[in-house]
């Protein structure tokens, strides 16, 4: 299987297509940053920082490409310790920008550790799953994997960086899935998350339409749970009792399923309930507004819909060929917010039109396709898992960011890796691409 003929792969050690995709995205991104940021007062500073980020990113790529990826597996504990240390450091020494304590300022430059730590988490988790692959079907392994991720997620939530933490979830799920994790386990975790998100949505909905909750017992009950711990306990007990009743009922009707199924169902529901209520209680107002805007764009609570609408107008008005670089009215005249960072895809859509936006889509697919390809060819399970995790990460960021610009996903403050302005993200992403290139180059066991 690993000796499958791949003429391009056989010939070279370096995956030029992967590099082409990455460089293409970085180039488009750089041009767009130059264009979108040009009306800003701190334009020279932005250009200077971006050039520096490009240089550092190139170095990070070479670092990833040059260093044998198995070193990360060997030094997994060190890496994990470093990751946690850096996340603690940011909470202690970090600088607060717009309500997030997420920056570490060093003498020459500042960076956001969360961008690097998500790649570190993939490397650490890949090691854990690789070592436990024989017990992968066990619940303990699954819990262990979650145990590896939980400190990182918690530290991210403390910043608080809700978006980054939430986007680790699909990465973990994808890695569990691709190591051969039990589908039942994965379904349970997903179900738990599903209940939590659904509760948050329900609560947001009842805020959007107060009149609905007057007529709907469910919504009123959700509101009650958010306010009172006692009622939460009652609800949890009720869920357990109902599950037990269902178990007895199925026995009486001579259906025989293992009791474990019922306990898992109850556990999933209760933990989902608790997580959902926890989110409901701690979610920030602007974050809830993003949900609301997504649910009902026209409602526009506190102008939160402004971002989405302006992004849609920008992309939609771009047409096939776009308005030309430096000529987008939405971006150049300042209607589009966060235009060189989170909403850069909207600028591409406006100034380069469908051709440019589709090119970004195509390059991203090519990039992820090459990572998947490297996963298939990788010489060991560790490399496979790292590539899987990176595929999921790039895929999740790509879909959430572009989906946000296109109005199909709630606004989340995450960048489009390799394209958006932001040194930390660019350097981390290029490092990740470098690691993939290294895994590819080491695909032959004898090399």
């Amino acid at each position, binding site marked *: *299987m690993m000796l499958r003929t791949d003429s391009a792969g056989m010939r070279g050690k370096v995956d030029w297509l992967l590099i082409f995709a990455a460089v293409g995205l970085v180039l488009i991104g750089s041009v767009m940053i130059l264009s979108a940021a040009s009306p800003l007062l701190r334009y020279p500073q932005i250009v200077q920082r971006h050039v520096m980020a490009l240089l550092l990113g190139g170095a990070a790529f070479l670092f990833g490409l040059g260093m044998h990826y198995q070193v990360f597996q060997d030094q997994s504990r060190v890496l994990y310790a470093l990751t946690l240390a850096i996340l603690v450091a940011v909470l202690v020494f970090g600088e607060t920008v717009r309500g997030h304590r997420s920056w570490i300022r060093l003498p020459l430059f500042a960076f956001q550790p969360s961008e690097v730590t998500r790649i570190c988490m993939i490397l650490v988790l890949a090691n854990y799953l690789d070592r436990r692959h024989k017990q992968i079907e066990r619940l303990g392994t699954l819990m262990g994997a979650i145990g590896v991720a939980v400190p990182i997620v918690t530290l991210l939530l403390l910043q608080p960086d809700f978006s980054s933490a939430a986007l680790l979830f699909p990465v973990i799920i994808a890695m569990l899935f691709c190591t*051969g994790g039990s589908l039942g386990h994965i379904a349970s975790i997903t179900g738990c998350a599903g209940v939590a998100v659904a509760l948050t949505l329900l609560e947001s909905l009842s805020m959007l339409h107060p009149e609905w909750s007057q007529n709907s017992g469910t919504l009123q009950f959700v509101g009650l749970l958010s306010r009172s711990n006692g009622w939460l306990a009652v609800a949890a007990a009720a869920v357990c009792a109902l599950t037990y009743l269902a178990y007895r009922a199925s026995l009486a009707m001579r259906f025989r399923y293992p009791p474990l199924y019922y306990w898992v169902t109850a556990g999933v529901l209760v933990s989902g309930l608790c997580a959902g209520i926890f989110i409901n209680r701690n979610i920030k107002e602007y974050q809830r507004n993003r949900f609301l805007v997504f649910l009902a764009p026209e409602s526009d609570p506190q*102008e939160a819909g402004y971002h989405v609408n302006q992004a849609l107008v920008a*992309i*939609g*008005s771009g047409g096939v060929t776009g308005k030309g670089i430096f000529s987008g009215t939405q971006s150049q005249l300042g*209607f589009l917010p966060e235009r060189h960072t989170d909403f850069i895809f909207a600028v591409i859509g406006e100034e380069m039109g469908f051709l440019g936006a589709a090119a970004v889509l195509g390059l991203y697919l090519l990039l992820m396709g090459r990572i*998947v390809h490297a996963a298939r060819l990788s010489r060991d399970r560790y490399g496979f898992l790292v590539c899987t995790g990176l595929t999921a990460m790039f895929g999740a960021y790509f*879909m959430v960011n572009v989906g946000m610009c*296109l109005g199909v996903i709630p606004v989340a403050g995450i960048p489009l890796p390799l394209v958006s302005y932001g040194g930390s993200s660019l350097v981390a992403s290029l490092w990740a691409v470098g690691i993939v290139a290294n895994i590819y180059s080491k695909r032959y066991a004898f090399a």
Partner: protein
Amino acid sequence: MMDSGREGLNARLDILWMLVCLGAGILLLRLLHIQLVQNVYYSQAAERNRTHVLRQTAPRGRLYARGGEIIATNQAVFSLIYLPPSKEQDAGTLERLAGDLAPHLKQYSGKLLQGLYRAIREESAIRLAEKLPPKIMFKLSELRTLYPGINLIVEARRQYPYGASAAHLLGYMGRMDEASWKRLKGRGYRIDSWIGKSGIEKVFEQDLRGRDGGIRMEVDARGRLRQILESIPWTAGSNIYMTIDWTLQKAAEEALRQSTSGSGAAVVLDPKTGDVLAFASLPDFDPNLFLQPDEENSPGRAVPEFNLALQGAFPPGSIFKIITGAAMLNEGRVSPEDRVFCPGYFELGNRPFMCWEHKGHRWQDWLSGIAHSCDVYFYKMGLRTGGELIERYQRMFRLGLKTQLGLPGESAGRVFGPAQRRARGGAWYDGDTVNLSIGQGELLVTPIQMAVVIAAVANRGTIWRPHLIKRIEYEGKRPEYRQEPEIAGQVPMRETTWELLQEGLERVVSDGTGRGVQIPGLTIGGKTGTAQNPGGDDHAWFVAYAGRPGEEPSLALAILVHHGGHGAEAAIPVARRILQAAFPQSAKAPIRLSTAPEGAAIPVELMHRSVLPQVLR
């Protein structure tokens, strides 16, 4: 190296890859939908985002007097506009802006703030203040750098170079009101348009008004003007050439101002055509005041809007003796030689009617009776003629009917006689006839009606519809409109009656109550009148026609001095000054010059399109 599980793992990886492709596919479809299917919708949205269209009021048509004097024109002024930023502005900034602007614009900051919020709510540019003088403009341009969204543009503003002159005739401009908006909506007007509110400005509103132009501006998200994308040129309004003789108009106003009460009306007509040569009413107002930026700050400004010449209906007093005389002479009830003895009073039954000359006029025939305005002569001859006939002659001279001058609010006056009394269910007595003979009683006439009557006497029978407009010059290819003289009626009287009537009126001036108006080298026929007014001082009347000896009369006038006292003392000086102005060679008056007004406005044509739409950056 590869263990057996690897095959299964790759299968799961394929599923992951398919999910990624599925997601990308959905995004691509959405992208196609937004960019290609909904492109037009979003392009329009983007265009609305970045552009504001600001309508620019076209210069109104100019009004010219007979001699070419410009009596209403336009001036370049600055308007302060606010382009709302697309993002929510915090209330503090808006309040500070309103507070800073208020003293310069002389408006209350609360009102300004309302305007700012309205602009933000409606996402459209609004004018915060219009017609700002250049002095304020320079102060504002400093503020402009502090607050984005504030910009200045140039527009045309109505200007009346002669101030209050002919104010009642020209009218004034004002903001659109509710009723006008219903009428004018959809004819190129906006809710904040200025329209003519009275006079010529109102009557010819739609001719005077041109087609507004506009500027399409590119603005950024904070409402700052980036560039002018397009200037839509306006079409200026039509110029109107009026029949008014500016020298006579000025003379009439000046004379009325210096009359005993300083209040009254003067109408001068050309008896050969019905052209209105002067049309004055005092007290007047300066229509420029209505255009001041602080206009809205002074609510209830008391404006003497009442046009005495047109809307004021008064008892005619002795000037009505012209019509009484016409009736009695033309119907043959009285021969001009018939004499009446005036002891200073007349008794009807046991009720005495006084002559104004309490000493009495002794023996009076037609010529001396009219010359001295002997009331007793007309009491007796009026009774001999009868109320019915006198009423018929009132109607023949079109009293009780509007003259159709064409300005709004004209009063029709009131006919007085047996038929009118019967129509109202009353009985007519001889005492009424006596009163009617000398123009008292319930009879009411307006100065413009009396001017038409005296003009008909001057031209021997033709009642012209008095008119103010000579021609209207339209913009573009539409041929100009010319006002031809229109005959409203004829007074069919015998030539001998006209001779007697004119002879009588000329005798008034040469040897009677109107001696004060005599001007050497002119043939003038006139009649004084003093209308008794139970509510105050008498109103002084004088009607007259004048011309070169041996020629047909070329001018007819009617003067009313409101509460002025005796016609001979109050109204005659006014008439005399107008006649001196009209026939300068006859009197020792300066040669008539058409002088340009001082401080003339920049004509809009000179301001030129290339200059005007420029927004001051």
